[in-house]
């Protein structure tokens, strides 16, 4: 239990592009680096960052030291960990653990590293970036897990057609029942509706009926959900009110989806 004394905050943030994150303090920078070590890009410590540290944060000594080390050709790992230590966000023990994790990450194969990057992006809700990372991993080495993860990403971004394609590919690869189930439900949201009918022909008898029953139960629940009530209420208020409500709702969904990219 403690109160950690923080340093100054910058008026103008540093934009950490890979995480699509605006950073205002050394503590936030420490958190972003340490929690998403796999996502730290090459040459993260650069003159622009050093200038921001010196000028915007008032950490003149740190900014100048890092710039000096950079110019001397210091290794990326040492620069990153100098920054993590100076953030004072982690204890020395935690920094040691992060250092070990860094080594583990850099010992991974390219495919494994890309997949882990995808996992990090997924946890951050950056599903489009996660897809790109998983695709890269797939390019190096194809496996079902990576295909499934791509499918999961497309579900989050509501690109059901693409999600369905991923699960179809996964099912064709290893006849995974879970993939077939996902494909069944996704096919309900695709056009034409019978596009993936052929994929279910080899399934054991009665399985699609069970899934259909689940689908119908889900639809019934959805019809009585509070969100649905709001839509029905808006509809009852008349054409203009409903159109205005719909416009707002669609805009908020778009905003939500864009945030997931």
């Amino acid at each position, binding site marked *: 239990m403690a*109160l*950690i*004394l*923080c340093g100054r*905050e910058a008026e103008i*943030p540093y934009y950490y592009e890979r995480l699509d994150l605006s*950073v205002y*303090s050394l*503590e*936030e920078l420490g958190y972003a680096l340490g929690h998403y070590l796999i996502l730290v890009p090459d040459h993260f410590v650069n003159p622009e960052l050093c200038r921001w540290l010196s000028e915007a944060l008032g950490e003149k000594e740190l900014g100048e030291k890092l710039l000096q080390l950079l110019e001397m050709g210091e290794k990326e790992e040492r620069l990153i960990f100098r920054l993590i230590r100076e953030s004072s966000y982690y204890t020395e023990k935690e920094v040691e653990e992060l250092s070990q994790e860094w080594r583990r990450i850099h010992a991974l194969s390219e495919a494994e590293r890309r997949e882990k990057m995808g996992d990090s992006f997924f946890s951050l809700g950056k599903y489009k970036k996660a897809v790109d990372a998983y695709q890269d991993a797939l390019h190096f080495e194809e496996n079902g897990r990576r295909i499934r993860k791509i499918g999961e990403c497309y579900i989050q971004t509501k690109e059901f057609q693409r999600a369905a394609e991923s699960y179809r590919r996964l099912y064709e690869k290893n006849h995974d029942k879970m993939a077939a189930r996902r494909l069944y439900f996704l096919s309900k949201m695709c056009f034409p509706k019978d596009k993936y009918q052929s994929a279910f022909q080899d399934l054991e008898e009665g399985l699609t009926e069970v899934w259909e029953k689940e689908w119908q139960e889900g639809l019934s629940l959805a019809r009585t959900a509070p969100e649905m009530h709001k839509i029905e209420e808006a509809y009852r208020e008349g054409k203009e009110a409903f159109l205005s409500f719909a416009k707002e709702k669609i805009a908020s969904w778009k905003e939500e989806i864009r945030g997931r990219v």
Partner: protein
Amino acid sequence: MKVIGIALSDEYTDISLYREEYTYRFPTLLSRERKGDRFYIGEEAYKKNLDGGVILVDKLLSLFKKKGSATISETCYDAKELLGIFLENLLLEGERRVQGREIPEEEGKDTLVLSVRDADVELMSSLNELVKEKFSGQYAVQLISHTESFSHYILRQDKKLYNRQVGMLEFSSQVLHYYEMQVSKGTKKYAISVSEAQPDALSFGILEDPRGRRMTDQVLSGLCDRLTKSKVYSAFFLSGKGFENTELFPEFMKKIVRGRRVCVESFLFSIGALYYGRLLGKGEEEECLLLCDTRIGADISIKVTKKERDFPLYLAHAGDSWLKETEDIRLLLENQDYIDFQVQDVSATNRGKQYRMSLTSFPKRERRCTKVSLRTSFHGNAVAGIEITDLGFGDLWKGSFQSIKETIPLKGKE
């Protein structure tokens, strides 16, 4: 370095520029031409009023305190504006009077110190706002009370004069005020000063009449007996316009000088403010801690950690002016949903008191992902106001910006 000390009151205002000898007294009066926008202050304002053609406004400080206003030829001026104009003109007139005189050359920041008798929280805060607004572009500005100014004056005197208790009586129109100061002996050096208005009010008007003078002498003698009973003073001071001529009060003077050193300084407060301004201009403070109505009497701290090292972080030190602006502090909560404040009264021998502020109403987040800002403010020297705001953690965790406010007593019982 330009140093100016001003002692402001409803009756008169003293201004000391650069040196003690360049001290001038102005009635706190302002007048404006009926047809025109020229302002006059002090005696000149009074003379112009006698000639006609101006409208006179007096008791500017009381008007300011009441947040009043005055209409001069169909223009309504609020009290803040009028007091501001008076002070601006006072400075101009003061500068005009010292023009051509020998001015000491000293390195430092131009400083203006304003002293008022009443350390009322609202008055001081409003006045502080006014002087900063008007003069902070040209001067480092500081507002103090007469009690504090008294301390600064005494501490500049020979040590023999304050090796015991020091007393002072201020005699202004309608005002009799008693001041006392004691410097502690021992390793912790602090100077405690207090003041108290006396119930006897005497008008200058009655001093023109011999009976009036005798009556005043009797009142002052009685006061002397009451105040100095069983007290030992290393020195006693007399200040204010009323004591410009002490020969008017022979009985009082006989009593007050018996067995003690008595010094008369009518302009004590503006000179005390000037002395303090000189220190501030050089970036210095008094050697000993000042404890009075404009200074906090306790250290306030919280325990924080940085790079895994624990240490106390002082939000304010005893002796700090409670008008001083404080900077917000930012803290990250590490598995902690409260903040403990340690208050140590500097003149007490106990370990101080601890006050806990609970932060359980703040949103629950991942460990070390709640940053809070802590703001300290003072409502006089007896109470600290604490405001803690949830900032979230940058763009990573959106803040609720919910604030929790509490007050902490700085002296006496909880």
